[in-house]
């Protein structure tokens, strides 16, 4: 090996040893930018909902009556509680309460799972009652078809976000157990929590649009 190459290898090893490049502000801004792009994605759907509701006001009110408000409200509280526990997990990490942080993140993942189970149960009930866009029950009711098309699209896309959030939080849980998330370097967990909160915010707006529409 030439002297130069040896130097280069030594240099690289040295750099690896001393400089793990981290950019806290950059990570945070990147995450927020991504969340804002998510806002635009759901914002477009909210605008579509508003315009169709203006066209089919009565059908949307009738569609809202078919919703199970109790499950909708309960699921809202489930998500809000999940946001609360994941927010507190960051404080727990910073105060070096590792066991508490593990418990809090696990709780959030569990609440996400509960949310999805209830959501799937609800969808099952709707489909059983013929409440889906191409069903024979809704044939001729164009407005109601639009309402349910938007319902499945928006809650479905939201559900995918819940699953993604649960996956990300599971990774954070493993990183935390392996001491890769520490009080000094917890930005990954903070960003994961930010994502979870966004999922929560979207649901905050979905609740009145669909469940309380009547």
């Amino acid at each position: 090996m030439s002297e130069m190459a040896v130097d280069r290898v030594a240099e690289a090893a040295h750099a690896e040893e001393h400089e793990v490049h981290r950019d806290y502000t950059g990570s945070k801004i990147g995450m927020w930018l991504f969340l804002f792009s998510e806002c635009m994605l759901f914002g477009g759907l909210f605008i579509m909902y508003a315009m169709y509701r203006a066209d089919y006001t009565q059908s949307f009110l009738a569609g809202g009556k078919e919703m199970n408000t109790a499950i909708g409200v309960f699921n809202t509280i489930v998500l809000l509680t999940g946001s609360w526990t994941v927010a507190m997990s960051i404080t727990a990490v910073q105060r070096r309460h590792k066991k508490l942080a593990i418990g809090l993140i696990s709780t959030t993942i569990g609440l996400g799972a509960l949310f999805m189970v209830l959501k799937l149960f609800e969808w099952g009930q709707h489909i059983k009652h013929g409440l889906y866009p191409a069903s024979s029950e809704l044939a001729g009711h164009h407005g109601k078809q639009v309402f349910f098309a938007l319902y499945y699209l928006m809650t479905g896309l939201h559900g995918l976000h819940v699953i993604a959030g649960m996956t990300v939080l599971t990774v954070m849980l493993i990183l935390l157990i392996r001491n890769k998330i520490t009080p000094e370097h917890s930005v990954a967990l903070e960003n994961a929590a930010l994502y979870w909160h966004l999922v929560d915010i979207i649901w905050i707006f979905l609740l009145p649009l669909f469940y309380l529409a009547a």
Partner: protein
Amino acid sequence: MAHDPTGVQEDVHAISYTTYTLVWGALVALTLLLSAVSVFHLKDVPFLTPSLAAFIISPIKAGLVVFYFMHLKYETNNIYKIMLVITLGILIIFLGLTWLDVALR
């Protein structure tokens, strides 16, 4: 220490468990209030028609999540708040222009 070259997190404001719990309590209370207004049609309460309640209460709830759970209130760098205002501004322009198109057709 806003631009610490070592990248070690600076100025992280650990919000107390109590603050988070109070915010969570407020969020649950607002959710129940919103549901009660919508389900029981509290017509005697002025300004609390269901849709108006949704327009007021839901943004307050979202605000609580953004400012407390998402730490926006405690961020020393204003870039996050500026980005939030720009995003909301763009959404309002989209909604306003689409609404004009539908309303004046």
